[in-house]
């Protein structure tokens, strides 16, 4: 019954899903046979409708999935949800579960949600909620914060988790000898004092998102790591071979380059959800997308994290599988080097953005699993404003802007010139196929308005020194990255940091600096949302980046795996509630 709900719907609604593919094909063909203007304009109405239809079909599909999940929830009693092994596959291995050094998404999530506990936990809008700390009080002056810890959380070796562990964790992450990847989480935290076993008090400064660092940094066991010299913590085998945590799952074994195996922790306190449903949880590295897809179909694995959009379409057509997605903190962009002509002219940058068909790019690269990006804040963040629209795709206005900026057609080669210099630039990217596709579309779009793009490909490790070194010998590059909840983008824009590696564009604005600084110190959420809007509009006016698209993380799972409620907090945020329908257990 549960199955038929989805199947019926798919029969009715799925076919329309393939139409945008044709649109893409037409678009690409247009590129090959000269200026795609004709193809673009005649089908503009159709294409908007097709994209809209695709997105609607996707929304309807996701609704059907949710309905089926809640039906399963209602029909299977809670006690029957326990049992089974859940196998999740991702592209990368988890290299270490040492919270002090691990930086990648999978590692950080396994620390925060699977193996360890955090002091607080983020709610859906990244508001801090009680977790290991059952509550906290802030002194009236706002400079001291006192956490009261739960007394029923134990390390997996039986030792209770205490205030000393919290103090120890903080002392280590802020220690300069420890290469903790984001010390800025704790730069407003100045001193710690253990009042008793369950009470710990910190001295703090005013800061927005003050508690966020505590929601992503796992508490470390002092009784195990306390004696390890500080400079050896990063290389200590604790994280790679024998991690002891305090979370809902315990470590069982690791096969390097292949998998991590965890088992349910029966002693996890009921107040935090109790024993998780699954008996075992496995994370496997499967590098090749096709192999992961095959493993999902044969039932070797139960879920693929971050599936490729192209395979997502195929997988969703399989009646035994379900594909869902959630907004991730990742977006992609073209960064313009405003230290160079012609990118020093804001009108040129704006013209380039207007001339690039970002909707087509988002569809080609992400299918239904992404959206055009309007600025540095995407749908994943609670300050995101759905009313805030990106610049339209408008080649005619782009042409007008370029004319006005002095870039005109001086001869018949189809490339604009100014003072004898043609409007031509190199666009760098890494060799990922998605970037090649984007570069091709950008090249075709800009050729239409008389701009010549020369795509250049560099492997990531080679591209980074090119764009970060002080001489900045590049015109523009394509990149995608993930941002963090505090939205501390001062390294990208601040006027006093133009020589810092991440200040790719060289564009800065004193007013923006003031906004970005305030964003890091205001405590109330309303002001923060207002400042974020201001940040977006200042960047949109100047277009130092052309924002391309926001990414949704795709989860493809077997239908019998239930309870996977993922959002921007990450795939594993709900891991303790995942359960397998009895007939889907292996």
């Amino acid at each position, binding site marked *: 019954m549960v199955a038929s709900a989805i199947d019926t719907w798919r029969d009715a609604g799925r076919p329309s899903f393939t139409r945008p593919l044709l649109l893409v094909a037409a678009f690409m063909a247009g590129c090959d046979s000269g200026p795609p203007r004709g193809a673009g304009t005649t089908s503009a109405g159709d294409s908007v409708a097709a994209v809209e239809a695709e997105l609607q079909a996707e929304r309807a599909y996701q609704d059907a999935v949710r309905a089926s999940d809640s039906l399963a929830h209602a029909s299977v009693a809670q006690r029957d949800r326990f049992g089974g092994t859940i196998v999740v596959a991702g592209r990368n291995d988890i290299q270490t579960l040492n919270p002090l050094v691990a930086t990648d998404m999978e590692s950080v999530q396994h620390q925060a949600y699977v193996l360890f506990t955090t002091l607080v936990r983020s709610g859906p809008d990244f508001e801090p909620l009680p977790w290991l700390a059952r509550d906290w009080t802030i002194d009236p002056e706002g400079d001291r914060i006192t956490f009261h810890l739960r007394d029923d959380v134990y390390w997996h070796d039986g030792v209770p988790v205490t205030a000393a562990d919290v103090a120890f964790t903080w002392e280590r992450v802020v220690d300069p000898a420890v290469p903790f990847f984001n010390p800025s989480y704790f730069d407003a935290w100045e001193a710690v004092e253990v009042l008793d076993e369950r009470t710990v008090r910190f001295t703090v400064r005013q800061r927005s998102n003050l508690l966020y660092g505590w929601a992503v940094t796992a508490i470390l066991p002092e009784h195990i790591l306390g004696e390890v010299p500080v400079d050896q913590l990063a290389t200590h085998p604790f994280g790679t071979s024998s991690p002891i945590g305090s979370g809902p799952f315990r470590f069982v074994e690791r096969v390097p380059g292949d998998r991590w195996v965890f088992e349910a922790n029966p002693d996890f306190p009921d107040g935090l959800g109790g024993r998780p449903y699954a008996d075992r949880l496995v994370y496997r590295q499967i590098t*090749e997308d096709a192999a992961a897809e095959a493993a999902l179909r044969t039932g070797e694995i139960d879920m693929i994290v971050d599936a490729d959009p192209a395979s997502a379409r195929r997988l969703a057509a399989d009646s035994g599988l379900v594909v869902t997605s959630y907004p991730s903190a990742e977006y992609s962009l073209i960064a313009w080097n405003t230290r160079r002509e012609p990118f020093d002219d804001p009108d040129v940058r704006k013209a380039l953005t207007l001339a690039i068909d970002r909707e087509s790019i988002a569809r080609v690269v992400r299918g239904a699993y992404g959206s055009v990006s309007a600025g540095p804040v995407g749908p994943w963040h609670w300050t995101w404003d759905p009313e805030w629209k990106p610049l339209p795709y408008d080649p005619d206005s782009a042409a007008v802007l370029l004319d006005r900026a002095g870039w005109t057609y001086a001869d018949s080669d189809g490339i604009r010139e100014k003072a004898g210099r043609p409007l031509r630039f190199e666009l760098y990217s890494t060799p990922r196929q998605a970037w090649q596709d984007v570069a091709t579309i950008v090249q075709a779009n800009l050729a239409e308005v008389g701009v010549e793009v020369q795509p250049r490909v560099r492997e990531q490790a080679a591209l980074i020194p090119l764009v970060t070194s002080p001489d900045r010998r590049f015109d523009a590059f394509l990149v995608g990255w993930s941002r963090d909840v505090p939205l501390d983008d001062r390294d990208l824009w601040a006027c006093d940091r133009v020589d810092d590696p991440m200040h790719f564009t060289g564009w800065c604005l004193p007013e923006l600096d003031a906004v970005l600084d305030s964003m890091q110190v205001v405590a109330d959420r309303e002001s923060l949302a207002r400042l974020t809007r201001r940040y977006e509009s200042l960047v949109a006016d100047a277009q130092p980046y052309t924002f391309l698209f926001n990414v949704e993380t795709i989860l493809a799972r077997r239908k019998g795996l239930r309870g996977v409620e993922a959002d921007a907090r990450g795939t594993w945020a709900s891991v303790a509630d995942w359960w397998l329908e009895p007939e889907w257990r292996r």
Partner: protein
Amino acid sequence: METLIRYVGSRLLQAIPLLIGVVTLIFLILHLAPGDPTAIWFNPGIPPEVLDRMRESMGLDRPLHEQYLYWLKSFLIGDFGYSYSQFRPVSEVIGDALPNTLLLGGVSLLVIFGIGITVGVWQAARRHTAADPALTFVSLFLYSMPGFWLGLMLILAASTWLSWVGLPVSGMTSIEHSQFGLFGRFADVAGHLVLPTIALGLGSAAGIARYVRGEMLEVLGQDYVRTARAKGLPERTVILRHALRNALLPVVSLLGLYLPLLFGGALVIEVVFSWPGMGRLMYDAVLARDYPLVLAASFLFAVLVIAGNLLADILYAAVDPRVRHA
């Protein structure tokens, strides 16, 4: 025998400067390539001071010749260093991965030469039947097929119309592996070996088959084969005892040449099948600019290649008296 030992000894001595040359070259190429290990932490929000501190802790702030001498010295005393992308000592990382690659490579080698020689001999013995051109077609087809593509097709087949066989498509062991008995574990790994071995070995086996067939046809035309037949020996003895032994001489030297090819091929096949071996390790290590890991792994590859060549030469001397006595 004594000459053989002296021969092997001198070859081993020659190998030492060769190995030092190889690793020095790789050291230089690695450091000349743009980028450094901190590239994997590329994300706005990581303060430049943190990256500088990481570079410092890896010794990357020192002049190149100092890094080289330091590295060479620790290398000579058997300290391969620390892998910054894996957060473990290099020796440990390689100790986990190398046996897996040797297993896959070894089994593939058996398959390559087992199938290749059998098919080649069989074809040569049935030269004037329809089976010969048919097999020629098949082996040329397989020989021309890239291993990674064959691998993807095998994965496709195993997950669709061959899914009833239940062959695993990725990894080396099942999740329940540690709960199996000895035989169960063996069967588990054997099952996981099937597809990667076919992908890695089939093309090469086809190549060997072509080669053996050619050699056999040449040998079968020799006077001593006619003599053997004239003596009234059964055809089976003629082919297996008299012709095959002579036809195999050049094939033996191929053995050494196939070793590096096998590891090169393993790099791709391991990625396709998520086989936790050296090929995949090295691929990731190069992208992450994990210098110590790349250097140690390439050193091992160089050792394997040199050992393979040496092995081929020794085998050649063992089977061919002319070489032994020269």
